[in-house]
């Protein structure tokens, strides 16, 4: 199974005119730098990555021809610990997207206070059109190039868009072969039993809901009376829907990309969606079968319909740039909370509108930090070669996410900041402090 079910949404995203994720990330950072009154050295250091690797991976294809693939690794900042971040396979990958995501990883690790820095990698390729053998060659080629610059105490990769545990194992195997060691802590997102952590699959989605649960308390809402609309039906969305239902809430829609129609749809059922039922009619790319969904009582709506649902909570859990200046006004007046399960789903223009409307936002790098937190747990377990029970993993995850949420919420309240700004303030301050203590500026 590919790591995201909403790859098609990204196609739309990447094609969106004028949107540059890195510029958005820098703009967000500049705003926080002003709040923190950072000096020029700190700004100059943190608004760009510390290191970037751009390289070419030659692969002999199944038809015997050799094809070149473009690969990247961006290491934004490692003042607080080894870089951490996924490797994405996508035909429309750009280095600016990777740079932005690497920077967000730095803030994400910092805001949940785990001792890791930020990084991200990618390869421009379309796994849909590649055999397993070809994908394996890309993975091994990526590692051959980067072997000296990644590792359990340098830079720890993980799965991301269209990469999965099997890719991580190929990469781990190549890394261990090159170095002649066993180093399961080099990479995370491995299958359980092969160095993977129990609870990793659920971690991001559950983490989103842990923060939502705390936010609902602050808003004076009971989960049992809450209705939510979800964008996406990938790993994050599936588990977020599950836990949201388990704490008493009702999910009325999810959306997914239809590979055949090359567009997304929203699947709505007013008496609540059932993730297990939908999974039973989902293809290997994460697309939900429309006809079967209709038979199960779902309405099939346009892809963007999720945003205008009458709900208390919106969970954008697909990809970046989904809540924009163009569609933010379609958000229903009932909505009190937006929990950003995806990375960068809200543009700065949309953010302004959310602020004006008093909609509470749990920012992406806080809300979806459950994944990297569990990756950190996986790394710890691998380095000890001792693996925890699922109870232990999820118990730790809950308290970690809750503590992080409460810290951001306290900061927002005390400093009268928007939640996103408060999260940035905490995260950036920690990184700046680490850099200063190291004497970097």
């Amino acid at each position, binding site marked *: 199974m590919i790591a995201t079910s909403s790859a098609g949404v990204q196609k739309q995203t990447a094609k969106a005119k004028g949107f540059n994720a890195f510029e958005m990330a820098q703009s967000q950072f500049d705003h926080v730098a002003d709040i923190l009154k950072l000096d020029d050295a700190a700004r100059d250091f943190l608004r760009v990555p510390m290191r970037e690797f751009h390289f070419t991976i030659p692969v002999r294809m199944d038809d015997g021809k050799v094809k070149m693939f473009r690969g990247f690794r961006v290491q934004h900042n490692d003042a607080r610990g080894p870089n951490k971040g996924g490797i994405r396979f996508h035909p429309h990958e750009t280095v600016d997207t990777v740079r932005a995501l690497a920077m967000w990883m730095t803030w994400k690790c910092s805001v949940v206070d785990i001792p890791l820095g930020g990084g991200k990698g990618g390869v421009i390729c379309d796994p849909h059109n590649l055999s397993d053998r070809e994908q394996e060659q890309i993975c091994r080629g990526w590692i051959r190039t980067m072997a000296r610059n990644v590792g359990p105490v340098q830079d720890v990769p993980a799965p991301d868009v269209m990469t999965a545990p099997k890719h991580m194992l190929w990469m781990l195997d190549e890394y261990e072969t090159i170095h002649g060691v066993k180093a399961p802590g080099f990479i995370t997102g491995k299958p359980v039993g092969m160095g993977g952590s129990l609870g990793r699959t659920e971690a991001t989605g559950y983490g989103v809901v842990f923060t939502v649960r705390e936010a609902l308390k602050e808003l004076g809402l009971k989960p049992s009376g809450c209705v939510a609309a979800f964008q996406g039906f990938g790993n994050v969305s599936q588990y977020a829907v599950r836990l949201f239902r388990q704490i008493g809430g009702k999910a009325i829609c999810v959306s997914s990309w239809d590979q055949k129609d090359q567009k997304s749809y929203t699947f709505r059922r007013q008496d609540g969606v059932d993730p297990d039922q939908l999974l039973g009619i989902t293809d290997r790319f994460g697309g939900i079968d429309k006809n079967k969904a209709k038979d199960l009582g779902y309405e099939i709506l346009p892809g963007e319909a999720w945003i205008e649902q009458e709900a208390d909570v919106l969970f954008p859990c697909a990809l970046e740039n989904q809540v924009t200046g163009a569609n933010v006004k379609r958000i229903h007046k009932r909505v009190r909370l937006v929990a950003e399960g995806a990375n960068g789903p809200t543009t700065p223009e949309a953010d302004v509108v959310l602020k004006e409307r008093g909609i509470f936002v749990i920012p992406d790098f806080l809300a979806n930090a459950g994944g990297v937190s569990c990756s950190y747990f996986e790394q710890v377990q691998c380095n000890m070669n001792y693996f925890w029970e699922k109870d232990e993993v*999820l118990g730790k995850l809950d*308290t970690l996410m809750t503590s992080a949420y409460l810290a951001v919420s306290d900061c927002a309240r005390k400093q009268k900041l928007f939640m996103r700004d408060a999260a940035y303030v905490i995260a950036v301050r920690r990184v700046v402090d680490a850099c200063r203590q190291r004497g970097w500026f």
Partner: protein
Amino acid sequence: MPAARLVLIRKAAGLGGSRPAEEVPRFDRRFFDGRERFTRIGGGAIGGKAAGLWRSRRVLAERFQDADASGFIVEVPTLTVIATDLFEAFMDRNGLWDLALAEESDDRIADAFQKASLPAELLGDLRALIEKVHQPLAVRSSSRLEDDRARPFAGVYETKMIPNNQAEVDARFRGLTEAVKFVYASMFFRSAKNYIRAARRSLRRERMAVIIQEVVGRRHGERFYPDFSGVARSFGYYRSGNALPEDGVAILALGLGKTVVDGGLAWSYCPAYPAASAPFASARAQLKRTQLDFWAVNMGKPPAHDPMRETEYLLRCPLSEAEADGTLACVASTYDAQSDRLTPGLHGPGPRAVNFAPILVYDALPLNDLVRRLLAVAAEALGQKVEIEFAVTLGEGAAPARLGFLQMRPLAVADEFVDVAGSEMRGPGVLLASDSAMGNGVAKGIRDVVYVRPDRFEARLTGRIGAELARFNAGLMAAKRPYLLIGFGRWGSSDPGLGIPVDWGGICGARAIAEATLPDMNVDLSQGSHFFHNISSFGVGYFCVRHDGGFAVDWAWLERQRVVAQTELVRHVRLGSPLVVKVDGRTGRGVVRKGVRA
């Protein structure tokens, strides 16, 4: 009501159904430092035990101010309850129902439960709790059926104490989650299943809440325990001197209450006559029949990892350790062999007898007044006879003592008028009789008798006997045949040397039970104390027959009856005519008469 059942007329319990969770504040991830000391996790019911405590807490707050005139602080120890919806989520998501309801061994069930994952929405709260708490916790069952008005379950499910003193949060968290799963699993242990079957309740509809509660006590080196624990009932079948059943009974033991709950050697007395002489022939006899050891939570070297064992983290300690800890002085007397006398307190060398004389005779602590007050308040709150459980730590220096109120539940007490004349208790028509019987009513129609063979009985074989009896019990229950059970020593004793260590589930098909003595098993009989609730709520007649007393079992007659099945140690006979069982609860007289052929 079946003819074989002793007819009991029970008063409404008055406790009400399991409290809806909304009444109880939500756990806010602060245990000792929170605004609320009684909280819940989850949105389902909180179960019978927790409901009783919730009610107790209110009553105590109204009637017992901080360290009032009694010199005690009386309170429900800090607790949080995991509501039943989370139990259901645990069972459903891990697919445990089929295995749990099947006739699997306890170990297999416990193992499957340990491997299962607790609901994600519970884990963060448990983790947060354990991060801040470093002292022992009791993880207790609080099932829906424990709230049953007519038949309140008692001692059916397991409780687990955890020391919770490890430096690592992970280790403490693991201990807590294992304990919660163990308590969940105990709902499906064989004895619990038998019990529920005998109570004609549906296991499928039973749901478990779990109480996580502070253990009342203090640390003494590697041991953590209260100075003493106790159970008190506002109605007692235990008779001594002038005491009447309505005067009630209290049972006290040094250390954790497990000694009392398990029916171990503990100090029983009537709260109306706390200083009355105990019914022992001599001080030497008393010495033999008082507590010799006590239970404590093990705070020392970690034990072998065994999450399936209730006593994993418990220590059974000799009295000498309590003396070294300084906790024996207020609960013991010293034996003087020369005068064959017991002197309250510790006076030089000499055997110690835990008879609570310094407190009950010398009034070193106004405990008895407090117990009587608590019983009265609890009985008033529930509108009927009650049982309470508590644990006490003495204050250091001028500090007041603290009484942790652990449980309050209604007592099912019969009020049918049954007269057992002295003449009925003697003669060839009598199979057995007793002047210290428990229960009240008449049962007819019992045609089966299961008895431990007196010629084969040895104290060292009591464990084996218990296991064999459980098999006979299961067969008779399946055939829906009520029976009379006769054995030696204290039924349900945790000490195999004092009697047969069965749990109630292993004998719950019996409609009348006799405990007898032999010259080689000449112990102080339990008088049903261990199974008190079960006996009273199931309407079972309970007879104590001493071999050297005024009544006896007609073993010769039993030997002549038709044998249905037998093992080396146990025999099951079927009678041509049904027995008649009569118990007069007011006088404690009871008789089992042989049937007369038509």
